[in-house]
């Protein structure tokens, strides 16, 4: 008889699972959130911070379990998510813009595009900043531009990878000032920071959050955004310096669901996430870790995607030539 007990229990469980979930019961089991980067990275720990409160009744009443699916700068995770993730509302993913949009444009065999996803909310905006080693001869952006003009192609600028925000910022800077810079793609934000600290490259673009944390070891010359940031209020924007670099390279992080998820579920997620992002505890933890917050709801996030896509199509066309 003992032999039959286990299969019987299983059968009972299976039948429970098949009883279907009424919308009022959503969510009745833990939610899975795919993070397309390795554990310990910026997106990963920020995702963990913003979802710590999910188990509270007023948000989801169920915990959010983070599942890391790293690879190819996020593409592996997003490919999987667009193709294979269940559309029942229990699977969601973090997004990084402009990364996923740029990748969908550049890599023709990607299985996703801006239209494969239902945007839910945005939690953070990490602008790119231009950093140089502590002992660099460049004291302002103008110094760097002047040097680059005199020595085309000699200035090495690194960033966390190819076609990520940093790369886009570099392209914008080069285009705006008509200079040739040599881009050195690194394995991620931290290795890129390390190279700049060790003066292995002359300059680099990196995230505001990382640069702020390491401000003892690097000089921050400018920020690629529309206005200065409170963390580093004495650093000018590129626009203030007279250089046409706007906020297309800002690294936005947020959440989306697969296209085709039930509209009521999407709305519920949106409300829960926006409330969580705006809660005091999340704000406190994010500030503690030096990560800038920027909350957008579903409609605003959708607009953001459209704007970034348009920008990228123009910018990337220039590279192709």
């Amino acid at each position, binding site marked *: 008889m*003992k*032999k039959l007990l*286990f299969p019987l229990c*299983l059968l009972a*469980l*299976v039948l429970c*699972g098949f009883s279907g979930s009424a919308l009022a019961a959503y969510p009745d089991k833990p939610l*899975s959130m795919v993070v397309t980067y390795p554990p310990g990275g910026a997106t990963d720990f920020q995702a963990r911070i913003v979802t710590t409160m999910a188990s509270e009744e007023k948000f989801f009443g169920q915990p959010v*379990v983070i*599942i890391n699916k790293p690879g190819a700068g996020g593409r592996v995770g997003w490919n999987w998510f667009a193709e294979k993730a269940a559309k029942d509302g229990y699977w969601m993913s973090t997004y990084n813009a402009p990364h996923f949009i740029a990748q969908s444009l550049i890599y023709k065999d990607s299985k996703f595009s801006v239209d494969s996803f239902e945007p839910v909310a945005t939690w953070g905006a990490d602008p790119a900043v231009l950093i140089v080693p502590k002992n660099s001869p460049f004291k302002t952006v103008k110094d760097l531009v002047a040097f680059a003009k005199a020595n085309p192609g000699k200035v090495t600028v690194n960033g966390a990878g190819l076609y990520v925000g940093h790369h886009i910022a570099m392209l914008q800077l080069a285009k705006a000032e008509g200079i040739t810079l040599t881009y050195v793609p690194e394995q991620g934000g931290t290795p890129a920071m390390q190279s700049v600290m060790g003066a292995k490259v002359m300059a680099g673009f990196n995230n505001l959050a990382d640069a702020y944390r390491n401000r003892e070891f690097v000089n921050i010359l400018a920020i690629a955004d529309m206005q200065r940031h409170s963390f580093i209020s004495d650093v000018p924007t590129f626009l203030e310096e007279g250089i046409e670099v706007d906020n297309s390279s800002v690294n936005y992080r947020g959440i989306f669901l697969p296209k085709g998820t039930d509209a009521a579920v999407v709305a519920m997620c949106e409300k829960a996430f926006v409330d969580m992002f705006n809660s005091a505890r999340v704000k406190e933890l994010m500030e503690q870790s030096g990560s800038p917050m920027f909350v957008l709801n579903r409609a605003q996030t959708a607009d953001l995607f459209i704007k970034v896509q348009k920008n990228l199509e123009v910018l990337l066309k220039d590279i192709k030539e």
Partner: protein
Amino acid sequence: MINARKRILETTVMFSIPIVALYMLRDISIADAKMFPKYICYLMLALATINAFQLWVYLHKIRPIHWPTFLRWSIPIKGGLTPFPLVRVGFALVMMGAYIFCMEAIGFYLSGFLFFLLCLLVLDPAKPTLGGAVRKTLYALVFMAVVYLLFSVMLGVVIPSGIAL
């Protein structure tokens, strides 16, 4: 001459891997990106050639004393005392393949349990008995229960869950 046949097969494979790789590299546009794998393939081809040379010499049974040290023989595996248990290994292979491919469909714990049980039943050289079968089911249950406790309950790790647990 099983040894010789095995070694000929091995040398063929050693040549074919870099050749296939070089073929796959052909349609990459950026020259720099091809450089590293290309040289690795050349190295592999060189090593395969040395191996083929050794094989040729072996087939002609020349004594190895005169050769420089870095072309020393690789020791061929001697034939075992018992014939190779092809059936059992074949079964193990098939079961493992089935386990991996069904894991996502029917869930990790169920498929693990079934695999464990089938392994114990099929691969055991002793004669199957009913009492033995019951005991094996118990072992399988206990093992999967421990794994379940350790991973799902204590660490809360997500496992591929299909229809069942």
